[in-house]
């Protein structure tokens, strides 16, 4: 099948709603179909990438640890909005994995240059 640029837009905090884990599942499947997968984290979505999360405290599934394996799924495009981090008192050192930090205007342009947008 053809290869398209898929963008998964993550704007939700990780535990409050159950959507974050299922979004990641969808992104992994897209990668397994040899699609070009891009993950954008902005607004409260940046909280998904924070270090030291303990989903076991809530008996929730530990999907954050899957972020550590993204490269194995050939997912290299992980974009995090710098402005969203700053508004929340966070910096790059708070993040679990290396990411591409971009400012809001740049991320807006990157999110526009995509074939399929899936958001949650």
């Amino acid at each position, binding site marked *: 099948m053809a290869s398209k640029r898929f963008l998964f837009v993550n704007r939700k905090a990780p535990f*409050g*709603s159950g959507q974050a884990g299922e979004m990641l599942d969808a992104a992994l499947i897209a990668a397994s179909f040899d699609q070009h997968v891009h993950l954008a984290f902005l607004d409260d979505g940046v909280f998904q990438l924070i270090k030291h999360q303990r989903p076991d405290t*809530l008996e929730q599934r530990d999907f954050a640890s899957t972020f550590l394996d993204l490269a194995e799924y050939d997912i290299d495009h992980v974009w995090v909005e710098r402005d969203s981090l700053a508004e929340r008192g966070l910096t790059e050192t708070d993040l679990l994995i290396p990411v591409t930090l971009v400012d809001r205007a740049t991320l807006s342009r990157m999110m526009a240059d995509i074939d399929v947008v899936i958001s949650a």
Partner: protein
Amino acid sequence: MKFAILVNTGPFSHQATESALAFAQAVLASEHELIRVFFYFDGVHNANRLAAPSNGERNLVRAWSKLASERGVDLVVCIAAGLRRGVREANLAPGFRISGLGQLVEAGILADRLITFGA
């Protein structure tokens, strides 16, 4: 003191569901009494026995049922909210019972504290 709980959200939809369960367990571990948990709005999905999360995921439906079987907690699903959303006798999990909104009002009257968990 008598507590009652109103649950407005379903499993895997919002953490409010898990908070309600944790709060219920904490009441049971305290000197207080838990007289009823009422499931309304999307909360009725907590009573769907067809839910079968995969390994490593929590089965909230079963966790509620356990509160009923082990601690005798009264779990009431709103009949109208359940019918709208497809939760009824045919797929009702053990330990739950289906009744009307009057059971919510009664819980508010009989309990000293009614706590809502929603989204």
